[in-house]
């Protein structure tokens, strides 16, 4: 493996994306299509007593309006099972009952002949509500001493607790006990969620902006009580999702029902406001971290109690404590997470779920401990480096965290840091340095793929996964090219179609580790199918033991004999040879613990005269195993760091006391823009993790977003002496903090 893998390759779908030719869901216009436009509830809690529809129904172009009283009563809930690949985001069916659980909950779908007509009519659909006096707009602070006192469900830490954390804390030489909170965040992918449904007899085709065509197909099959084979979900290009498009949302069901009833294709592009209210968020979390240590910095106790808000319409455990048991060598660890219901739309995983919020708390606490101990924060972490995974007591498959700390510190110039708070200045600005560790679990799932040798020499690779912008199209092509010798430009990759062999969700950083082994298995199977044909009597290799034949550089070879695949296909008189195969993880999970690690260092500038904080530069060294395409992989890490900058400084989805989502738009929900972006230096270590798969890749989508918020908050403390434990670190928090 050298020429094509672990090499910077421009994206094979680049020409399409750069010319406007890539077909995202909303770009697909079908003959005779109608336009759906949703109407959301104006209140957050209560009953929908009725709808004023007459005016809207009489407006130009309006075909129908769907709502509780006329919706399809035959729909069923999806079992919502991850193992069976039919998870949905919001378990409640659209218009299922008249109870309002959150602001923006869909109360109607207007369908009209044009987008403008649908939108105009939707503005004239008015709900009549009986609002509840009681709205749970947000959970109270985590009651630190009495987690059982909180509303909601206690999630113990999956048996990840060990030792006697409380007793060790009581006996520790140095202790620390702090509370942290993180505001609700919204994925805010640039592409609006969209769904176009069209029925042909009893066959349903859905064009959807989704990170999981297979999951949506299965979910739809349960909702509509149809065999999955009669449903196809297509998502060739996705304007990213960050978790917000992993699982089906109600708009897709509304749209498919409307299309079936009206016997025409229906296209619903969810307006940005509804994306905020009704298509997912990272829920607000509150965390308490208690650390106990010896005076030399050795951790003796970690207790991490988390909680997150979920919706009344469904349970989402954001597992903010997920990384904690594995981060540091400590004999006594206890973790819990608690979930309580609020009148918000359904939360769901958002990029680096668990780890991003959890490591903000833990890695800020580690910085606080370093200050208490008067230790260098890097040294404190090194002191507690875990040689094996302390949670599972298994050896790491591959762990180069120490090198991450060292390299990043060197690239950053950490040795230039003056430890004293506020001591580094330039003009009006005070300079702060901060760092944190980064981590994300590495996973691999079952996957199928299909490979076809075509007569013209091209190779087609198909898999029912998606490319959400991470570069899956390209790395699949790189892999197939590497293994077959077919030049990358002669490889056709087909993704984003649930009729293809079943592939994974594009999420959790597991797609690469999952898909590439299936590509190899399918290529091997297709090669074997070809060999089976050419070793039959009268064929080119009939005299050869089939096991001795190899695929090399677009040809089958045996000793000195090498015949191009195209020649073989021509001699066989067939247009193609195709095969499908699956690959799944073995029992390596019993032998090793798989985790990626990294270190991130940040410089901030604080101008106290105008309360202006900016991130001046970011350095991150990451160990993700092998990067199949270092160019797209580095882009992923940089993107995660940028999102983390937003998480640290800007992002908060705000609900007022009435449960009203106040900033459901891209002007008031503040995400980073060009001008916020400092120089970013990302180093990818290259230690292939062959225990996870033959390609040594562990995945890269999430890890950049972990740790960065803590590194920024730690740098802010170094500059200002203000320890902001609540995200975002807003201007008012900086102004008001002592």
């Amino acid at each position, binding site marked *: 493996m050298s020429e094509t893998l672990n090499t910077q390759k*421009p*994206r094979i*779908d*680049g*020409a399409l*994306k*750069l*010319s*406007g*030719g*890539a*077909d*995202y869901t*909303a*770009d697909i*216009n079908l003959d005779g299509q109608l336009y759906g436009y949703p109407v959301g509830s104006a209140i957050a809690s209560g009953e929908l007593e009725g709808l004023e529809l007459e005016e809207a129904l009489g407006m*130009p172009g309006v075909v129908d309006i769907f709502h509780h009283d006329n919706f399809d009563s035959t729909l069923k809930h999806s079992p919502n099972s991850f193992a069976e690949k039919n998870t949905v985001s919001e378990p409640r069916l659209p218009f299922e009952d008249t109870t309002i659980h959150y602001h923006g909950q869909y109360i109607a779908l207007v369908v009209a002949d*044009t*987008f*403008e007509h649908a939108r*105009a009519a939707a503005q004239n659909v008015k709900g009549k509500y009986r609002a509840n006096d009681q709205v749970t707009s947000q959970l109270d602070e985590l009651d630190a001493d009495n987690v059982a006192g909180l509303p909601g469900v206690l999630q113990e830490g999956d048996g990840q607790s060990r030792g006697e954390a409380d007793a060790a804390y009581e006996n520790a030489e140095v202790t620390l006990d702090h509370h942290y909170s993180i505001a609700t965040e919204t*994925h*805010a*992918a*640039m*592409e*609006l969620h969209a769904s176009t449904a069209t029925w042909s007899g009893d066959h349903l085709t859905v064009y959807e902006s989704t990170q999981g065509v297979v999951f949506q197909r299965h979910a739809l099959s349960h909702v509509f009580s149809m065999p999955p084979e009669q449903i196809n979900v297509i998502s060739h*290009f*996705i*304007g*990213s999702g*960050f978790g917000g498009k992993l699982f089906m949302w109600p708009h897709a069901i509304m749209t498919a029902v409307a299309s079936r009833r009206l016997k025409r294709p229906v296209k619903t*592009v969810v*307006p*940005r406001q509804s994306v905020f209210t009704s298509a997912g968020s990272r829920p607000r979390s509150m965390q308490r971290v208690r650390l106990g240590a010896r005076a030399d910095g050795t951790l003796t106790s970690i207790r991490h109690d988390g909680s997150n808000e979920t919706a009344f319409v469904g349970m989402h455990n954001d597992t903010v404590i997920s990384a904690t048991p594995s981060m540091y060598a400590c004999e006594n660890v206890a973790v819990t997470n608690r979930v309580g219901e609020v009148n918000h739309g359904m939360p769901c995983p958002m990029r680096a779920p668990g780890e991003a919020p959890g490591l903000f708390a833990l890695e800020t606490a580690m910085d606080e401990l370093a200050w208490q101990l008067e230790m260098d924060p890097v040294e404190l972490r090194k002191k507690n480096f875990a040689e094996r995974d302390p949670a599972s007591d298994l050896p790491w498959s591959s762990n180069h965290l120490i090198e991450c700390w060292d390299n990043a510190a060197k690239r950053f110039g950490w040795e230039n840091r003056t430890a004293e708070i506020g001591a580094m200045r330039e003009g009006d600005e005070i300079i702060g340095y901060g760092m944190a560790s980064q981590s994300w679990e590495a996973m691999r799932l079952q996957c199928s793929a299909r490979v076809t040798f075509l007569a013209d020499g091209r190779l087609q690779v198909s898999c029912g996964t998606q490319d*959400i*912008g*991470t*570069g899956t199209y390209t790395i699949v092509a790189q892999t197939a090219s590497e293994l077959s010798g077919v030049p990358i430009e002669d490889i056709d990759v087909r993704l984003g179609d649930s009729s293809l062999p079943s592939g994974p969700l594009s999420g959790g950083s597991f797609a690469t580790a999952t898909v590439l082994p299936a590509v190899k298995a399918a290529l091997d199977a297709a090669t074997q199918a070809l060999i089976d044909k050419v070793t039959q009597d009268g064929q080119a290799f009939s005299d050869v033991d089939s096991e001795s034949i190899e695929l090399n550089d677009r040809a089958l070879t045996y000793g000195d004999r090498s015949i191009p695949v195209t020649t073989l296909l021509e001699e066989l008189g067939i247009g193609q040879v195709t095969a499908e195969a699956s690959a799944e993880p073995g029992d390596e999970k019993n032998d090793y613990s798989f985790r990626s690690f990294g270190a991130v260092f940040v410089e901030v500038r604080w101008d106290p005269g105008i309360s202006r904080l900016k991130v001046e530069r970011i350095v991150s060294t990451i160990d993700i195993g092998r990067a199949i395409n270092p*160019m*797209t992989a580095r*882009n*992923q890490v*940089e*993107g*995660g*760091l*940028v*999102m983390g900058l937003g998480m640290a400084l800007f992002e908060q989805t705000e609900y007022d006391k009435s449960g009203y989502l106040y900033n459901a*738009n*891209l*002007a008031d929900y503040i*995400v*980073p*823009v*060009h*001008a916020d*972006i400092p*120089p*970013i230096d990302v180093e990818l270590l290259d230690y292939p993790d062959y225990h996870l798969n033959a390609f040594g890749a562990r995945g890269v989508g999430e890890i950049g977003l972990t740790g960065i918020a803590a590194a920024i908050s730690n740098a802010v403390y170094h500059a200002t002496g203000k320890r902001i434990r609540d995200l975002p670190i807003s201007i008012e928090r900086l102004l008001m903090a002592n």
Partner: protein
Amino acid sequence: MADATLDATVGHVDPNDTSSLQTMELTVNGQTHTLTLEPNVVLLDALRERLNLTGAKKGCDHGQCGACTVLIDGRAMNSCLLLAALAEGQEITTIEGLADEDGTLHPIQQAFLEHDAYQCGYCTAGQMMMATSILNDKDIAKDPASIKEAMSGNICRCGAYKNILDAVQSAHRTIEGA
């Protein structure tokens, strides 16, 4: 004269028909299209839903993200806030019209490809149209800080900003050198 002018410019408005369709000619990428639209159609929807030119994207529909950026007489504008009727008589350029007719990529497209200046690709057309406008604008300086400031109305949630900046600077060098 005044009244006559009004009538002539209103088009065929039936006082009983609130839909008030208007026929207009839009010149997009050098090609003239005759469209009959209601006045409340914005250019973005006209391009995407009527002309099937779907390269310009809808990310917010309110001038808050820049994904819909197109060129109007060479200057970048948010096509989601521009009534289609008001674009009549002006040269509209979309991403579909950026490359040469023989398919040769515009320097900005080539630079985006080489610098991996995108991830999901959804904001990309808007980024490139804005970059094209900026590189042609003598009033905008081309140092990194000025480019970043001038590009700040084009949000990239994937966070490929660093590569976008590299690509814009690289394209600037290419264009200047040419």
